[in-house]
């Protein structure tokens, strides 16, 4: 059975302020969806609400992964059910080495007594780090501590590769990446494309979508998906900006949640 991720009428609030005003989106295994949209329109909020960030309160709607209700689950259960979010601003965790963290995350998906062997783990980790052209020392560094913006993004992709999720949400994975890193990270994502895996890619730039060809492009404004199309939509946005969309839809202020 191929993966099926369905978001239906999702509304979410932060500090009592409604940010997501009803999101509908369906992602099947093998598909790549891109979400674009001006700053402050709710893109990261959507990602956080799906993952279950404690600050975001889902007030209405559902999100199901292969029929299972994600929103009923704790954050860690959502991850184990197959959801992965590469965050716009990954946390730094001092004192916890990247490799200890990765091993804990892998073992969290395995039965007690059936933990991954150290040798096998190291082989896997080193292999993926090589694919991402990461210096092996990053395995022993404390998780994200003192990583540059681009290094953090690469580390998010490393986690994605090792955790083998069904639905991947990438929140501005391209921000802070230099030209070479953008290519490397995109190759990493493309290598993970499969019939069982769906992607939701949040980005501001067509650049990324040249490397990772989306099947669908959605525009977000005012906490809603206001327009959807194919790859040509991203190209037009890159060339012309958002004004034409706003005009077409009669939107004056595209942001959401601003007093």
């Amino acid at each position, binding site marked *: 059975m191929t993966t099926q991720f369905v978001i239906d009428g999702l509304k979410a609030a932060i500090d009592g302020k409604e940010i997501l005003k009803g999101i509908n989106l369906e992602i099947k295994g093998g598909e790549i969806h891109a979400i674009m949209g001006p700053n402050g329109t709710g893109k990261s909020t959507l990602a956080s609400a799906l*993952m*279950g*960030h*404690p600050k975001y309160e889902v007030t209405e709607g559902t999100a199901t992964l292969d029929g299972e209700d994600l929103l009923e689950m*704790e*954050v*860690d259960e*959502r*991850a*184990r059910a197959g959801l992965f*979010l590469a*965050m716009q601003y*990954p*946390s*730094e*965790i*001092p*004192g*916890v080495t990247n490799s*200890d*963290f990765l091993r*804990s*995350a892998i073992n*969290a*998906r395995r039965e007690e007594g059936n933990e991954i062997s150290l040798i096998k783990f190291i082989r896997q980790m080193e292999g993926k780090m090589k694919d991402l052209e990461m210096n092996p020392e990053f395995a022993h560094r*404390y998780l994200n501590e003192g990583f540059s913006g681009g290094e953090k993004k690469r580390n998010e992709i490393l*986690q994605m590769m090792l*955790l083998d999720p069904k639905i991947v949400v990438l929140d501005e994975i391209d921000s802070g990446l230099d030209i070479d890193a953008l290519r490397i990270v995109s190759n990493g994502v493309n290598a993970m494309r499969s019939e069982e895996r769906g992607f939701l890619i949040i980005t501001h730039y067509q650049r990324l979508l040249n490397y990772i060809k989306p099947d669908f492009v959605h525009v977000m404004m005012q906490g809603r998906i206001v327009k959807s199309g194919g790859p040509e939509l991203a190209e037009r946005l890159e060339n012309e900006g958002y004004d034409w969309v706003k005009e077409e839809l009669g939107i004056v202020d595209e942001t959401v949640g601003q007093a």
Partner: protein
Amino acid sequence: MSTQLTTPTDRQSAEALARSKGEPDWLVAQRGEAAELAGTIGWPKPEKVRIERWNLTAVGRYEKPAAAGAVSELPAIVRELVSEGTENLLVQRNSGAVWKQVAGELSGKGVIFTDLETACREHGDLVQQYLFKAVSKDEDKLTALNAAIWNGGVFVYVPKNVEVELPLQAILYNDDQESTFAPHILIVADNHSRVTYVDCVITDPAAAASPFVHPSIVEVFVKPGAHVRFGSIHSMGETGVDMTIRRAVIENDGRIEWIIGDLNDGNTLSETKSVLKGQGSTSDAKVISVGKNAQQNSLTTQAVHFGKSSDSNMVTRAVMKDSASAIINGITKIEHGATKANGVQTEKVLMLSPKARGDANPILLIDEDDVTAGHAASVGQVNPEQVYYLMSRGISKQDAERLIIYGFLAPVVSEIPIESVRGQLQRLLERKLEG
């Protein structure tokens, strides 16, 4: 019943006890004087902790130690702490030494490793030069009390140019809380010598729990060019009060490394101070503490710089659970004339419950211009963003918090230079954190 005296001891009984143990006259006199002092001066007054509210009177009575015939006769809780082999091992039970052994090769080189009572009898002249010379008996009631009643204890002497490869290990424990348990540890490392000393101070959990006080003093003399590593883990029971004063005097180009694990279950006053007397002398102090229940901890590290180009580094990290509290003081003092001195310190407290309390007080007192100094301090709770991040990778909340807590302590634990101490600390830490 423990001895419950407002003045914990008096001149007559201190002198009588010393005489009955066959102690030399100078020591009998020192104890008598100290006992009298103890009746007249006050307890130490650490920042923001009222230790006089603790039960400080249960000093107990002297119990004559009965020597163990073999290591195998020692209780399991002691045997499991033997990490350095039994070649160089000293064990104190309650009021005195019950086991001691030192490798023939070391005694052949002139190294002394014995209990302090024996050292006072057999090496009186040497001991007298150093005993109560780093810590003065009239500083406060605690130092006077220790001077009056100290028992068992440890004496280490390493002659000039001798390097002791293996750590010397002492295990000090009490299993009768009515007995006086008041060690004094004295270490003298002569010019260009090297030595590592490690100890564990514990309570037998099977012992009947009643209040007890552990007034303890550590004095370390680091002679020119000598290098001393001192590792100590305290893990005494809930009914105990641990008051331990550690002090080192470091001469030219000497170095001391302190590794302290304050893991008691009872109230704790722990003070670790390096007096950097000599030019180019250096000190590195690492202190780890975990508090639980309603435990109160006053943890102080201090470096006093007199020597030019002297260097000190102090790190304290504490995790407080339940309604435990930790008041952490770091004091870097650079005296006038200590040019090119450098002193840095960091204190951090992680609180695991809303009722836990932490306080970090970094203090720099600098009377010289040509120096460098720095401090950092933080007190906080487990960061929910970090928990969320780890959980978003499938790690359970409990494991995420564990990773963060161990991560908080890891930068200090992983740098502990003595492998056995690192291992023991890790094991005891886990026990206290999970328990």
